[in-house]
């Protein structure tokens, strides 16, 4: 378990009353397999939620439903006031407001780092090229790799690529950020640099939903930890209580296994 040693600046981490994501009675099937069962989840603006659980518990699927990379079959998902239906306009609207960071970075290998970051602002937001490049450089500074701007993704290390992926999402000025196991494909040395970037983002008050196994990150940054198993939310609590006083047997078993060694 990665421990976070730095002091966290909590002055901007404020949870507002405004709802960012509202999921009600949501169900999803893969063919016959009932992968998400009766999910109810309300995320307020400014919340930092960590979703944990064993593999196959549906946690990635859950956050992928929030920007409709996966389609849900029943129930409602409302993101920032827009309900996700099969209406393509709504989907594109939600996607441009919600940033996503993937386990395998998914940078575009045929474009430079700078082009990766400016592509969506230019083509989706219709931002002038110069302005988009300035924004991109601003965020590349923020993730501490401005000097790589004119290289291609294949020339960067995994940790650098993941930081570029975060910068690429931020360039769209998203209101919500989704992280799908952002550090799972990284060497231990690189996990820290990505987590640091994510912590900085949290310190600025970004609404974040993170699927991750980094329990140190959860303890330090999250305001709520959600534990999922078999497609259901089994337990959710604020991190201190979640780690020190888990209620369900399944949660206890999971925590003993990942924190035990």
């Amino acid at each position, binding site marked *: 378990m990665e421990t976070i040693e730095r002091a966290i600046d909590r002055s901007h981490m404020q949870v507002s009353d405004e709802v960012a994501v509202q999921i009600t009675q949501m169900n999803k099937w893969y063919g016959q397999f009932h992968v998400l069962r009766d999910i109810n989840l309300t995320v307020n603006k400014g919340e930092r939620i960590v979703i944990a659980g064993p593999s196959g518990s549906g946690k990635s699927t859950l956050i992928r439903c929030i920007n409709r*990379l996966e389609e849900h079959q029943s129930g409602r998902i409302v993101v920032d006031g827009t309900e996700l239906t099969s209406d393509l306009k709504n989907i594109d609207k939600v*996607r*441009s407001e919600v940033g996503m960071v993937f386990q395998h970075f*998914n*940078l*575009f290998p045929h474009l430079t780092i700078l082009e990766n970051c400016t*592509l*969506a602002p230019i083509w989706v937001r219709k931002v002038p090229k110069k302005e988009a490049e300035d924004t991109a450089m601003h965020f590349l500074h923020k993730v501490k790799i401005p000097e790589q701007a004119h290289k291609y993704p294949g*020339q960067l290390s995994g940790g650098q690529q993941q930081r570029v992926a975060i910068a690429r999402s931020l360039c769209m000025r998203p209101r919500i950020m989704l992280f799908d196991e952002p550090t799972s494909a990284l060497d231990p040395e690189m996990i820290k640099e990505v987590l640091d970037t994510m912590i900085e983002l949290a310190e600025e008050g970004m609404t974040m939903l993170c699927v991750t196994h980094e329990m140190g990150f959860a303890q330090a940054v999250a305001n709520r930890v959600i534990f999922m198993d078999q497609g259901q939310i089994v337990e959710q609590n604020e991190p201190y209580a979640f780690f020190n006083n888990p209620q369900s047997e399944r949660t206890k078993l999971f925590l003993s296994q990942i924190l035990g060694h």
Partner: protein
Amino acid sequence: MSDTHAETVAFVRETMLPQAAPPASQTGAVRWLRENLFSTWVNGALTVLGLLAIFWLGTHLLPWFLHGVWNANSLAECREIIANRWGDEASGACWAVIRERWNQFLFGFYPSHLYWRPILALLLLFAALAPVLFGSAPRQLLILSLAYPGLAYLLLWGGSVWFPISAYLGFGAGIAAFLLLRRAGQSLLAPIVAVLAAVLWWLFLAGPVERGLQSMIPLAMEPVRSNAFGGFVLSITIGVAAIALSLPLGIVLALGRRSDMFLVKALSVGFIEFIRGVPLITLLFTASLLLNYFLPPGTNFDIILRVIIMVTLFAAAYIAEVIRGGLAALPRGQYEAADALGLDYFKSMRLIILPQALKISIPGIVSTFIGLFKDTTLVIFVGLLDPLKGITDAVRAAIEWKGIYWEPFIFVGAIFFVFNFAMSRYSMHLERRLKRDHR
């Protein structure tokens, strides 16, 4: 001083070793020979056998080339010269047939005082291709690339200058309709109406407009009929047109085949499988014979145009499958990342997916193009004079060249080789230029 301290147990390196050169015996020509030609006894034996084979081929073929005769008026005269010069047993090439008939191989029965037109068309082709093929060419040349189809048509077939211009105006009508409707906010309707406007223009307005302009300002070039085309003018015309048209059509078909929309997918699959399931010659016969039954009587639909359409459809089906392979090779993450950024289908295809998929597909696409170019010789079956059989038969029909086979075939083969080898080298250049993974 040694790096290790004998008296301590733990090992700590104090100085990092610099990079050193490999041992001398591991470099140079000797090592190359040993590694590549004589690494084992078996390999050594194979090397010797290979050299013997090359020697045998050389000693048998070389005299034939060296004894070649360039100045003669008939095959019989060629043989006489060779027999006089090298003895009765000697064999030799009779290149005189190429010297005498090269213009037929290249131009078919194109009027000889108009040879400058296909030559100019070919030169302009290179200029028009430059900005498309090479990133370093000046962008202004793109205007020539756009104008080239009309220009080439005019140069090759001649006729009224206003014909290609009024055809281009059809595109203008389409684009105008598209822009007007999009400004009016009908972005969904715009492409449909644009295509409709262009088609309506070509069907009903292009003819009268052309005739009107022609009667006002008569500008025309001497017309050349399609049946005068032959040899490489014919092959290159069909080949270039079909290559240029089949790539976009192939991309559309490949995307159609992967579409979620049932009808689009079914139509694409049906088209691809049908075209790939029948021989090209079937399609060519359809073009030359059957189409006349379906078209209203009296329509004169140019045979070369019909062949170009069929060859295009044929190649497009193969291109579509090659590109589908490229699309399938892309990781799902690329599609998801494009979606997650809010790019719509067309933008994500154009900006993210196709640039990568096409790059992967380059070798397959170029193979298909090379195959297509060679397949243009099949037009002999619909009565067009291709360079390989049509023209050589025509040449052999003359009494003085009766019985000459090798020399024309070698000549035609060599020209095909030059074009195809150039395409192959270009594809390798393109792959290197687009190499981005640095792994």
